[in-house]
C-alpha cells in the first residue's frame, strides 16, 4: 500500500489514474503505456489483488486492481462482470506492473486536491515487484563508492 505523497516538481506532467473513487497521480515518465483491458490470463493461486497477467513485449506482466494501492479501500471490492477499462503499465528500473483503471488523464503541474501522488518505485514496492530501499541508503552507497 502507498501512504505518502511524493513531492512533485512544479510544472511536472503527471498521469492521473482513476478507479472508483480512487485517483492516483504518477509522473508521466513512470507510465509506460495505457492500453485496453483485454487479453488477461487469470492465474490460480495468485494474490487476491491480482486480476491476471498480460504478455507485453515478451514479459508476463501481473495486472492488479488500482484499489489495492489504497489503504482506505478494500482490495476485496469485486471486479464487476463486463467492466471495461484500461490497463496502465507502470515501469521502474525494468520492473513492470499493470493496474486496471476506469480512466486516465494527463495533468501539468498541480494535480488538485483529493488526488494522491505517487511514483512507479513506490507503487512497485507496494505490490512487491521491487524491494524497499532504506531511506538514505542510496546516498550512503554513493558516498561509499566515492571513497
Amino acid at each position, binding site marked *: 500500500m502507498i501512504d505518502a505523497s511524493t513531492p512533485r516538481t512544479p510544472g511536472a506532467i503527471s498521469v492521473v489514474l482513476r478507479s472508483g473513487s480512487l485517483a492516483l497521480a504518477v509522473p508521466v515518465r513512470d507510465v509506460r503505456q495505457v492500453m485496453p483491458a483485454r487479453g488477461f490470463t487469470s*492465474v490460480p*493461486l495468485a494474490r*487476491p489483488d491480482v486480476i491476471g497477467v498480460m504478455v507485453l513485449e515478451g514479459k*508476463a506482466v*501481473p495486472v492488479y486492481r488500482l484499489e489495492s494501492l489504497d489503504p482506505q479501500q478494500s482490495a476485496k471490492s469485486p471486479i464487476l462482470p463486463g467492466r471495461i477499462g484500461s490497463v496502465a503499465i507502470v515501469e521502474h528500473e525494468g520492473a513492470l506492473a499493470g493496474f486496471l483503471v476506469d480512466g486516465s488523464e494527463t495533468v501539468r503541474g498541480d494535480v488538485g486536491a483529493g488526488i494522491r501522488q505517487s511514483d512507479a518505485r513506490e507503487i512497485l514496492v507496494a*505490490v512487491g*515487484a521491487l524491494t524497499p530501499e532504506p531511506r538514505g541508503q542510496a546516498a550512503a552507497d554513493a558516498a561509499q563508492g566515492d571513497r
Partner: protein
Amino acid sequence: MQVLVFELGGNGYCLRVEDVMRILAPGDGPGEGLETADLGSLLGLKGVAPPGDQAYDYKALLPSGLALRMGAPQGAAVLDATWILPLPGYMFATAAVPFRGIVEIPQTRRGGRALRMAHRALLLDPEVLLRHMGVDP
C-alpha cells in the same frame, strides 16, 4: 518441446509431454492401487469441471502413477523453450509456484481447419503442484 494442452474453466493449462506417461480417456481408471487428483481442486478452482462431466474427465497419468484430472483436451503443440515466460513469484499467495510459466500456443492448422486451442496457457510443473498440495508426487 512438445506440450499437451487442456482447457479448464476457460483457461488453458499444459503439461510437457515428458511429464506425462499417457492420457486416460473418460471412464478409464489409473489402474489398481493408483490415485487420482483433480487439477481444479488443487488450484483452488471451484465449479470449473463438475464431477461426471465427460468432456472434462481426461486425466494425465504422471510418472509417479498419479492420474491428474486435467479438463478438456485441446491438442498437442510444439513450443520453443524460449517462449516460456516466467511468472513473478511475488504475485502469488503461495510460496511454491506450480507453474513453469505462461506460454503462447501457436494456432496450427490441420486439414485446412484451425485447431480450437487456447491462445495462451499456463505450463504446469506437476511435481511442485502435487508436493505443494500435499500429494506425494
